[in-house]
């Protein structure tokens, strides 16, 4: 990114009727008292990028007319903010009421604009300092998740969970099928419970052994064993008994028992889905919302809905968050629909199995069923086929109609049981008491022969399904843990950066001050489907994992909020982009402000910073840091001296002159003269000290303030020297000295960030100015001062 901002033109915009902020591609620090138009400049930057001002929209903004608030009360022109860029020297202008930001004619400018995140991610106001700290874990998580853009990963996570459910259902079906087959070989009266094919073969050998079948250890030996047993049976009855056994076996398989459970689950899902759909009319527009969200994400500067072409009254961020929330709800809806679809598939499968079962039973009617049973079977099959059509229609049309349990299933099972018992009685009646064991053995072996291929296949399917189930569980866990670990690693990086910034602000001066916050963590927590991100600190190495609000002072919380914001900008925002800090140092004391200046200069050299402050001390500190690093060519320092409705902010380029001071020695402006008076006083003292060769304590940074000269006794030395030169004016000289040095705290009182400033009156200020001017004149007359250029 090579483009930088050369100028920002506000014509008109809020309190800026026609104002140009010149940056010349550099960072800028703007100093100005309360109500001097600093925040209007920041508002203009936010307006340029987002088309609106966040603080005029959403919760707490009441009835603010956002458009009216952006107009100048006198200038009737449409508010506009224009950015001029360097090196291309082209501009882009946003006018209130126009739609999107006009496309830049130069690609590099468009790239510059596109690479900026939504405005709140690079414009920080004092009131927003504590946002990240006061956020709920879920809100904080969502903010970072948004910054990290985890939607695709979260969607993948859901897919792994759904795939696991899919495979689990398949496994349950396989197990159910195998259980049903094995059930045929179970005789509770004889305590026969077979659990696999090997058990069945062993049981075959056991029941055949009394009939001289000595060798039955392989399935291939089953046919010859059956032949041996068959030869011992009654020729008159064996055919009918075999037919009855076959029919009894078929009727012994119960109808799919899961149908009722699946129907209940489908209906429960239908209820939930119907409710969700009723609550969210846009559910049917799910795809549109998803697309819209993607579009918003890619176009952070839009001010108008891409579909309805209406202005985004709530502003980008609010609409974006609402879309994201709706998309999350739709994601939940989609998950429910997937589950519903799977359940309906399972229902169709179970029903088909039942129909196949009934078809086989129909085929077994070789005159052995009671009269009318086959007709009953046909009737029920037809009814179930109709019901199957209904289920398929509900599934395919995606309607949320209730699905009833088919009454035929219960009726079919009831009549099958009756027929099953009746056929068993018929069969038992055909068997002579002495042939009972033989017939039982024959029946068991024939059943084993008939079902062996099915059981073998079912066992194999179940084994494969079990393997798949284990693999799927490992896959889902692998993704879940890999995601958790990667996201936490990123959160650790962010926490590490925040802590390093916090230590930079609070660990200094050897052991005299160390950070109260000895460790800091951002830990992702599981909060149902949404997730959370817990911010915790270690307090003085003693209390671990605590909420910072429980231990840190307001000032420390402010600086922690600033560190969180700056670390997030450093990590997430693009190099070369803007970082705007609007008066964010209010509750941070002098020494810590010194560290903030250092942090900004050292850690954000690749950003174009726009910093506003009303704090003259900090403004000077920042300037000193920049000078000390030899980076004055990368920065501009601008003082706003005053603001008027007609002219807006006025520069303080000449504020260090007597003309400037005198023109502002009026009731409405004198309180802002602290900086100017300090400049002229220090300049005067330096030149006098130089001329008189006053011994001043050496200061390594070369920056001497009024107190250094006073400490060296400049007031007494100057008084004595002036009286030596003009003894007849001794009383006036003493008065002048008293006017200037006797009110040494006056400048501090005048500083606008000093709450005591109102204690200084205009008369006292004028007295100070007159005293200093008089002393300056006396020094010039008696050559006690080096050339004064003020």
């Amino acid at each position: 990114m090579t483009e930088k901002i050369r100028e920002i033109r506000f014509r008109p915009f809020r309190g800026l009727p026609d104002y140009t902020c010149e940056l010349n591609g550099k960072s800028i620090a703007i100093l100005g008292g309360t109500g001097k138009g600093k925040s209007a400049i920041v508002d203009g930057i936010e307006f340029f990028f987002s088309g609106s001002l966040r603080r005029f929209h959403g919760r707490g903004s009441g009835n603010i007319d956002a458009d009216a608030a952006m107009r100048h009360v006198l200038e009737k022109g449409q508010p506009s903010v224009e950015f001029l860029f360097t090196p291309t020297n082209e501009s882009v202008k946003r006018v209130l009421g126009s739609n999107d930001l006009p496309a830049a004619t130069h690609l590099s400018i468009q790239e510059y604009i596109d690479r900026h995140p939504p405005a709140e991610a690079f414009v920080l106001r004092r009131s927003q300092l504590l946002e990240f700290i006061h956020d709920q874990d879920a809100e904080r998580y969502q903010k970072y998740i948004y910054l990290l853009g985890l939607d695709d990963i979260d969607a993948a996570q859901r897919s792994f969970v759904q795939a696991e459910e899919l495979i689990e259902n398949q496994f349950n079906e396989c197990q159910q099928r195998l259980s049903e087959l094995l059930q045929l070989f179970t005789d509770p009266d004889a305590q026969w419970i077979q659990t696999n094919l090997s058990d069945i073969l062993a049981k075959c050998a056991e029941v055949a052994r009394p009939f001289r079948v000595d060798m039955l250890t392989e399935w291939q030996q089953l046919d010859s064993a059956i032949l041996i047993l068959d030869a011992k049976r009654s020729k008159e009855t064996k055919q009918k008994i075999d037919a009855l056994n076959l029919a009894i076996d078929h009727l012994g398989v119960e109808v799919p028992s899961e149908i009722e459970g699946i129907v209940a689950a489908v209906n429960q899902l239908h209820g939930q889905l119907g409710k969700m759909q009723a609550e969210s009319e846009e559910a049917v527009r799910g795809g549109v919302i998803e697309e819209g969200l993607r579009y918003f994400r890619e176009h952070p500067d839009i001010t108008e809905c891409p579909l309805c072409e209406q202005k985004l009254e709530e502003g980008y961020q609010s609409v974006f968050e609402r879309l994201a929330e709706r998309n999350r709800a739709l994601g939940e809806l989609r998950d429910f629909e997937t589950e519903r679809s799977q359940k309906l598939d399972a229902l169709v499968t179970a029903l088909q199995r039942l129909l196949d079962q009934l078809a086989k039973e129909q085929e077994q009617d070789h005159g052995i069923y009671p009269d009318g049973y086959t007709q009953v079977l046909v009737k029920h099959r037809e009814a179930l086929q109709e019901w199957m059509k209904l289920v398929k229609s509900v599934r395919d049309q995606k309607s949320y109609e209730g699905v009833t349990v088919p009454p035929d299933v219960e009726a079919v099972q009831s009549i099958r049981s009756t027929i099953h018992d009746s056929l068993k009685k018929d069969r038992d009646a055909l068997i002579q008491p002495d042939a009972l064991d033989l017939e039982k053995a024959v029946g068991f072996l024939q059943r084993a022969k008939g079902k062996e291929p099915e059981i073998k296949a079912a066992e194999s399917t179940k084994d494969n399904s079990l393997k798949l189930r284990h693999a799927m569980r490992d896959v889902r866990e692998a993704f879940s843990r890999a995601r958790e670990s990667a996201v936490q690693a990123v959160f650790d990086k962010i926490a590490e950066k925040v802590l390093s910034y916090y230590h930079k602000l609070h660990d200094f001066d050897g052991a005299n001050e160390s950070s109260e916050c000895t460790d800091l963590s951002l830990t992702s927590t599981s909060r149902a489907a949404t997730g959370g991100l817990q911010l915790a600190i270690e307090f003085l190495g003693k209390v671990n994992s605590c909420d910072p609000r429980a231990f840190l002072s307001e000032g420390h919380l402010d600086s922690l909020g600033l560190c969180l914001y700056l670390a997030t900008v450093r990590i997430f925002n693009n190099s070369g982009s803007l970082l705007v800090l609007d008066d964010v140092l209010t509750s941070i004391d002098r020494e810590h402000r010194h560290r903030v200046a250092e942090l900004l200069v050292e850690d954000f050299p690749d950003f174009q910073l726009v910093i506003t402050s009303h704090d003259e001390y900090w403004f000077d500190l920042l300037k000193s840091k920049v000078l000390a690093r030899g980076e004055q060519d990368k920065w501009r320092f601008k003082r706003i001296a005053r603001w008027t409705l007609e002219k807006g902010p006025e520069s303080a380029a000449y504020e260090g002159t007597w003309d400037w001071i005198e023109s502002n020695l009026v009731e409405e402006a004198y309180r802002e003269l602290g900086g100017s008076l300090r400049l002229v006083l220090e300049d005067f003292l330096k030149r006098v000290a130089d001329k008189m060769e006053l011994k001043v304590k050496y200061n390594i940074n070369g920056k001497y303030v009024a107190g250094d000269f006073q400490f060296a006794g400049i007031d007494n030395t100057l008084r004595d020297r002036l009286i030596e030169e003009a003894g007849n004016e001794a009383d006036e000289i003493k008065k002048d000295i008293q006017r200037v040095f006797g009110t040494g705290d006056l400048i501090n009182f005048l500083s606008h960030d000093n709450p005591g400033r109102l204690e200084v009156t205009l008369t006292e200020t004028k007295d100070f100015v007159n005293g200093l001017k008089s002393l300056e004149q006396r020094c010039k007359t008696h050559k006690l001062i080096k050339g004064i250029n003020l």
Partner: protein
Amino acid sequence: MTIGGEEQINPDQGAGTTNLKSELRDMLAKDFKKRLTESEHISEEQCKRLYGLLADGSISAPNIAKALTGDEESMTDD
């Protein structure tokens, strides 16, 4: 962006979003692969297919199931 796939990164970009995003996805993909290969229940072929799904952004429940069963032909249906 695909998870574990290659992405063009603008050389002008600093330690910005995209770097961290791709770093996260790289970490996730590598860790996922490592965990898959460590599992005694997942074959090398299954691992390859699953990793491929992640890399080309075609993760879905049916595709995951198909990647495990090796039903490659019907995988293209989705």
